[in-house]
């Protein structure tokens, strides 16, 4: 076996292990990091990346501040600069570098806040909510945190927060809008924010704050319990009253509350709809329990919002647009150039056959596609993890990998066929033309087809998937489609047939590979 196989393995090795190929692999890693980074940037532009709950208690001529700063997944960040400023004048009243989980005292903050509260109490003043705001500036983004609550009197406090739900005291028949009643019955002001990370795993974070409004200096101690339930027969929309049978639910312990604000990690059952929360005093008396509900089945998880950038038009297709050029070049270096100069003929006088040369150099390109895409996908995953702490699920990773490799191998096969039959100048001209056709001008073709087939603009998307079967680069679009479908980002398309999605690249590859060899087998290799 060694006698005959050595030269073939050798040609493969030499075709694969070349400087340009290795540089290319590095390029793909950078592209993976770049894709994540660009997607992340787009993502945080449309989704606030920083949230906070900050409580400031004014007592004994001193301001006592206690708060946390978290990113969009509800994880505490390392550090940031907090600024309290006036919205109307833009004047910064207070600025301090703080950790993600901070507490401090300040007399200057006390003075500034006292002054603005006094101004707000004059009749002609605008409401204080429109005057004060907290701004957080950090390395991963900035956040504008509105005023959440204020109490003036002998127990003065100001709370800033992007927390959108309040606990309410009585079970049954209440909506999430029971704030007034809460304030009436209880001396505790407590609220929560649910961050759904992933619909499929049910991973979520819950940020809970609790303030003893009678004496804010005293922290609330309580037990937090939860359960999930189905929203059977409920009208759509969270603003409708939801008759949750809170009394019938058996609550499970989530954790204890000992501070003004706490973050809990929890797993929500993916096939249920509603999270029910119960906050009871630490003494075990359930008479004073507070309840909260959050419909999570209609929330768009952080993950899906992020994935729509990664897999959608902004991220993946932007990068995928340029990958085929690499394979166009690879087919040129491995086949078109040596064939065209005539150097391939001298190599063919070694103990290798035309089939060996054709196959090994083809496989070298395929191997590059497999490895580089793996590196690319790995880099995407790694930088997602680092940037946002989220990764695509295994199925989506597999689909992304398969789609990218299928597209790149199909396009490479097309180029390779051209390379084994055309002179290098002509090869470059035609392959670049085809690249432009399949990547840049394809949407124009779909548009023209849509106009002439009379479907109107509405049919554009359907047609783009339909015509995609005739485009070797389309597996990337199908991968993007399946990933977004998986995360519930886009609806199902009638024109995407799984069998055709699989069959189309297989046909592209086998037809051009076979055709290429038919030509190469006979061709005169003299330059």
């Amino acid at each position, binding site marked *: 076996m060694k006698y005959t196989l050595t*030269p073939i393995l050798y040609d493969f090795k030499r075709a694969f292990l070349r400087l340009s190929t290795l540089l290319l692999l590095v390029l793909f890693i950078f592209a993976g990091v770049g894709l994540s980074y660009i997607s992340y940037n787009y993502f945080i532009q449309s989704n606030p990346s920083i949230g906070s709950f900050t409580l400031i208690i004014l007592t004994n001529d001193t301001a006592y501040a206690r708060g946390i700063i978290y990113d969009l997944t509800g994880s505490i960040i390392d550090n940031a600069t907090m600024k309290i400023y006036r919205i109307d004048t833009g004047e910064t009243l207070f600025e301090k570098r703080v950790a993600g989980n901070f507490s401090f005292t300040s007399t200057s903050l006390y003075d500034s806040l006292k002054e603005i509260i006094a101004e707000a109490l004059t009749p002609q003043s605008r409401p204080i909510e429109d005057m004060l705001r907290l701004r957080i500036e950090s390395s991963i983004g900035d956040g504008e945190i509105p005023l959440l609550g204020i109490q003036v009197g002998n127990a003065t406090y100001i709370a800033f927060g992007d927390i959108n739900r309040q606990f309410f005291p009585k079970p049954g028949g209440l909506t999430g809008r029971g704030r007034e009643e809460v304030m009436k019955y209880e001396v505790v002001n407590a609220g929560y924010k649910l961050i759904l990370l992933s619909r499929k795993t049910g991973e979520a974070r819950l940020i809970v704050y609790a303030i003893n409004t009678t004496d804010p200096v005293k922290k609330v101690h309580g037990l937090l319990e939860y359960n999930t339930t189905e929203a059977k027969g409920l009208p759509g929309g969270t603003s409708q009253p939801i008759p949750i049978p809170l009394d019938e639910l058996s609550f499970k312990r989530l954790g204890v509350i000992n501070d003004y604000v706490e973050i809990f990690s929890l797993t929500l059952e993916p096939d249920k709809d509603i999270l029910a929360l119960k906050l009871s005093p630490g003494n075990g008396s359930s008479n004073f329990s507070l309840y909260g509900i959050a419909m999570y089945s209609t929330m768009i998880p952080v993950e899906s919002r992020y994935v729509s950038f990664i897999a959608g038009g902004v991220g993946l297709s932007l990068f995928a647009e340029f990958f085929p050029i690499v394979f166009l070049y690879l087919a040129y270096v491995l086949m078109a150039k040596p064939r065209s*100069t005539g150097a391939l003929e001298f*190599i063919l006088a070694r*103990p290798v056959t*035309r089939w060996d040369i054709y196959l090994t150099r083809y496989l070298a390109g395929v191997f590059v596609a497999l490895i580089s895409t793996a590196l690319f996908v790995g880099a995407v995953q790694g930088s997602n993890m680092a940037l946002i702490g989220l990764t695509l699920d295994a199925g989506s990773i597999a689909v992304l990998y398969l789609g990218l490799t299928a597209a790149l191998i199909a396009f490479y096969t097309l180029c390779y066929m051209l390379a084994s039959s055309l002179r290098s100048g002509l090869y470059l001209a035609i392959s670049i033309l085809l690249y432009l056709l399949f990547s840049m001008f394809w949407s124009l073709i779909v548009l023209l087809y849509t106009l002439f087939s009379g479907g109107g603009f509405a049919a554009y998307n359907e047609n783009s998937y339909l015509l995609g079967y005739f485009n070797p680069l389309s597996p990337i679009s199908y991968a993007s489609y399946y990933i977004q479908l998986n995360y519930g980002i886009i609806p199902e398309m009638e024109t995407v047939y799984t069998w055709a999605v699989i069959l189309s690249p297989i046909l592209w590859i086998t037809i051009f590979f076979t055709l290429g060899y038919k030509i190469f087998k006979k061709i005169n290799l003299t*330059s």
Partner: protein
Amino acid sequence: MIEIRSISKTFSKRIKALDNVSFDVRNGEIVGYVGLNGAGKTTTIRIAVGVLPPDSGDVLINGYSIVRDKRRASMHIGWVPELPIFEPDVKALDYFVYLAGYYGISSGEARSLGRKLLEEVGLGGSYNLKLKEFSMGMKKRFALAVSMINNPDNFLFDEVLNGLDPQGIAFFRNLALRFRREGCAVLFSSHILSEVEGIADRVVFIHKGRIVREMSIDEIKSMAKPAFKIRISNMDERVEDLLKDYGRVRVEDHTVFIEEPRVEASKITKILIENGYEVEEFSRATSNLEDVFFRIIGERG
């Protein structure tokens, strides 16, 4: 042993490059392969070394078919193309190591073998020159060094003396003779018969894609015997008849050639004068090998 068996090749529908070409090159023998440019020599050799597939026929190298068993057959072939082409931007020794890899030779081993063989073919100082800086003669020497990697016993030299300086010509001639001594089969193609005269044992003539003759060097030399060249002012058609008993007669305008004459010049003159011919000029001409060549392929030069 190279056995060329009925190979045919058509490049386009109009040009039949090779038509049923067959001949052998036995071990310990140098065979000259002679024909005009475009006769099909290079095509034959390219098919024989396996870089061009024939339309039909086969070439056996030490009994291995170049068509069906190329990997094995190629192990026994050394080839110096007429115009060798390599990757232009690679250094000579590196390219040698690269090509040696196809024979399963590790890069360390190939490096020392490369130094030895490049030295042997006279490229000792050019290891680190890029191949595009090589002259034609150097390229042929390099191709030869590569041919010798596997120590084959069949060599095909395609117009190898073409474009070489006298030193290069002597080098390749001596090398061919050395290979013959070592028992190798050597095919030596040329479009000039005299180029192969000194070294070939046999000559195969190809013309327009067909083998027209196979001759030993002795036979060829005998064809190059002296001839009488007689210019007659009142030439007519009876001359040929009159002289046919004294040698091979050929008439061109006012000149009659008598090849391999069997009688003395005086006798011929006498006969001509007796028959009323006016002999203007009588000379003794030795027909050279090129005349022989053109006579063999049936075309006048």
